């Protein structure tokens, strides 16, 4: 039975495959374009596409010039998110620098800042954000809020019991405190750094009055330390606090706790590379026969259209699947992207993605007459495929009506699967909807392309 099968199809299909492989092997440019651009693009994408916000240029107008205002400034300065660029006399001068694009964020401390703090009123400060880059502005605003909030917490806490700078005080203070310090994790992690879920003290009780210097910004896991008479916040603040409690949001970052942005980009770029490269390469090989006219010779052989198509797709498919491994290896070696789930599932869905790319390429080749036209068409089809995929920036950033369109995009499903398998470590039980969608899209594209191809042959 098997030998019969061999005789029937193997005889014709095999030589055709060998011919294709030889042809691809001789085409130095094709092989190079299969190996170098993907690796290079992966590396450049991973390094360059980084929306992470750090070192925001901060300009300061300090009209108060007091210990309190310096405390606030040092809180900003100590965070890695901001880099103090300069001090200005007036907010007009600051605004001028902002409009030149020399600053990202401005902090204006009014002249009555220290007075209001002394009177235990709420002291307003102004934060000016260059919102041209909305993402930067949003994150910068978030960081500024975090810094001020944690400073507030510290001021509130420090009036009865400030954060100890010297951990050595801790044992004695916990011995003193009638009510034990309640240690709660603080969500303050500034500078986009890995979330330090370091517990910060949340002193609830009273402690004896002693003098300490200004509290440090870093969350200090020690207990209470003596009262800071230098910071004029009332004790009734604590009573208020006791009256209303407080909410501590303990934030856990799952799957990518270091917030490594390249992990997101690499897992997304894989799909883009497979589809883009698949379409360009297959369009190029298909059109070549047409351009040179050898397609007529192929038609004269006894091989059927199906055989010709399979023989065309097979070797390309094999090469592009090798590319998946190449890209995975690059991601692992250069960026340390893990594969937490099943490698087999990843490669299987990757090959579906390759099939989709080949389908697009062959369809393009049937619509065009020359290499140049096919390249041009690919040039115009690939950017939308890459953009409307959620691979390099979130789908939630797109307008509502556009989001469903992305569901037709193979790259979208593959990037969900890649992130699921590589970062979340989930399996087929969770990812089956995307896998099925990807399967459907790939089969549809291959069907369309072979129908078009056959029509052309006939």
């Amino acid at each position, binding site marked *: 039975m098997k030998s019969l099968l061999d005789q029937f199809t193997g005889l014709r299909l095999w030589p055709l495959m060998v011919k294709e492989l030889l042809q691809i092997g001789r085409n130095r440019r094709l092989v190079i374009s299969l190996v170098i651009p993907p690796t290079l693009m992966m590396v*450049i994408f991973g*390094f*360059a596409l980084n*929306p*992470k916000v750090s070192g925001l240029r901060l300009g300061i107008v300090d009209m108060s010039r007091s210990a309190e205002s310096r405390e*606030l400034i040092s809180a900003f300065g100590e965070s890695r998110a901001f880099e103090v660029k300069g001090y200005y006399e007036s907010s007009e001068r600051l*605004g001028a620098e*902002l*409009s030149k*694009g020399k600053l990202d964020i401005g902090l204006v401390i009014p002249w009555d800042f220290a007075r209001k*703090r002394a009177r235990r009123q*709420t002291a307003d*400060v102004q*934060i000016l954000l*260059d*919102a*041209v880059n*909305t*993402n930067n*502005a*949003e*994150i910068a605003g978030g960081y*500024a809020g*975090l810094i*001020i909030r944690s400073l*507030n917490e510290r001021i*509130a806490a420090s009036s009865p019991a400030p954060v100890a700078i010297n951990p050595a005080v801790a044992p004695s203070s916990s011995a003193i405190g009638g009510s034990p310090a*309640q240690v709660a*994790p603080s*969500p303050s*992690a500034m500078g986009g750094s890995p*979330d330090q879920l370091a517990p910060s003290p*949340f002193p*609830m009780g009273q402690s004896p009055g002693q003098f300490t210097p200004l509290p440090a910004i870093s969350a200090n896991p020690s207990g209470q330390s003596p009262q800071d008479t230098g910071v004029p916040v009332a004790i009734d*603040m604590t009573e208020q606090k006791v009256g*209303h*409690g*407080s*909410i*501590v*949001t*303990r934030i856990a*970052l*799952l*799957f*990518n706790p270091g*917030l490594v*942005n390249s*992990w997101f980009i690499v897992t997304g770029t894989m799909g883009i590379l497979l589809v883009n490269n698949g379409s360009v390469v297959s369009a190029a090989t298909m059109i070549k026969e047409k351009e040179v006219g050898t397609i007529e010779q192929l038609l004269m052989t006894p091989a059927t259209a199906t055989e010709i198509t399979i023989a065309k797709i097979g070797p390309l498919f094999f090469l592009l699947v090798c590319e998946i491994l190449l890209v995975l290896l690059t991601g692992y070696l250069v960026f340390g992207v893990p594969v937490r789930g099943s490698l087999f599932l990843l490669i299987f869905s990757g090959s579906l993605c390759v099939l989709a790319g080949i389908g697009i390429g062959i369809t393009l080749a049937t619509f065009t007459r020359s290499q*140049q036209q096919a390249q*041009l068409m690919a*040039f115009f089809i690939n*950017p*939308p495929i890459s*953009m409307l995929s959620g691979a390099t920036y979130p789908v*939630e950033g797109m307008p509502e009506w556009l989001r469903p369109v992305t569901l037709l995009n193979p790259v979208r499903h593959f990037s969900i699967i890649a992130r*699921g398998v590589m*970062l*979340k470590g989930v399996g087929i039980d*969770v990812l089956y909807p995307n896998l099925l969608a990807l399967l459907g899209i790939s089969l549809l594209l291959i069907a369309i392309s072979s129908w078009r191809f056959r029509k052309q042959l006939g």
Partner: protein
Amino acid sequence: MRRIIAQCRKELTQILRDRLALSLALLLPLILLYLMGISISLTVKDIAIVVQDLDQTPLSRRYIDAFRSSLTFRVDPWPITEQPWKALEDGTARGALVIPKNFERDLLRGDAVEVQALIDATDANTANLLRGSMSAISGGFMASISPGVALTPIRAETRLWYNPGRDSTKYTGPAVIGLGLMLFPSLLGALAMSREGEQQTILQVYVSSISAREYLFGKILAYFTVATAEWVLSVGAAFLMFGIRLVGDPTPFLVGTAIYLFTTVSFGVMIGAGIPNQAAAIQATQIVGFLASFLLSGFIFPISNIPAWLRWIAALVPARYYIELCRDAFVRGGGWPAVWYAPVMLALLGSFFYIMAWRTMRRMQVNA
């Protein structure tokens, strides 16, 4: 001069006859402009989060409502029997919030209540945004349930300049104009040049009396005209689609545009002169023109985030300077003092491309 104009007329006639190329040159930029303008944004709205309310009291519901009323989140309840991270695993939500039992009781009693938030950090940037707004909402909620108290010794009053609505099209919109103008004029220029090389019509040029300089100028002038038409179309479309308007002094923008168009066309001509093969020339423009302009121009991802060893490449990308000019002209309005260097750098790059193209042409002429 007469020869330059003749060469230019010949090119224009050729473009007008090639309907496919012409429509690609004028229509596709608009389509891409639109797609990119609306789809590329890192600012997210409406992120699905699930909430597991183990307390089920009026106060806990008010707390959830604080999340529901923010534009950033779309809140769905999550059954108590299920583990909350399941929602993150299968991607139904980007975040999960677990409100503990006795939330209300402990809060009123004055204890610290620990609310647990799980965030899907696969997308590091969105996770960062979520983290910021989650703690901001918690803070706002605390302030709202204990009114009139100076619980906040310092209050930040945030003002968003230039783009108070945080409309991300204001950021991407002007930049897309620059990107489209990098892509298509250089592509057309490269195609026209490499076609002459591929079809050997360049030999006819060699035997004619036209000099390399006149020939190049004629070509560049022709594609400069096409690029200007494209510029008018894209700026008009950006006015209509993204609602952006010129602010401040428009002269740096206009001067910069003229130089930029010369630069992009020269870039294409340089590629085409160097690669006498149309398909390869397209690939080269795609990689250098599109990818470099897309990634290394500060289009969405800030240049300051690119590692130092890659950043010097960004200084050679013309789109980078033009995007800064566009953003200044349409959003910031800083005028000459803010962007004087951009036209200068563009002019330098443009002359470099032109000289490279000219040198290649001269070499070819001697060889032939």
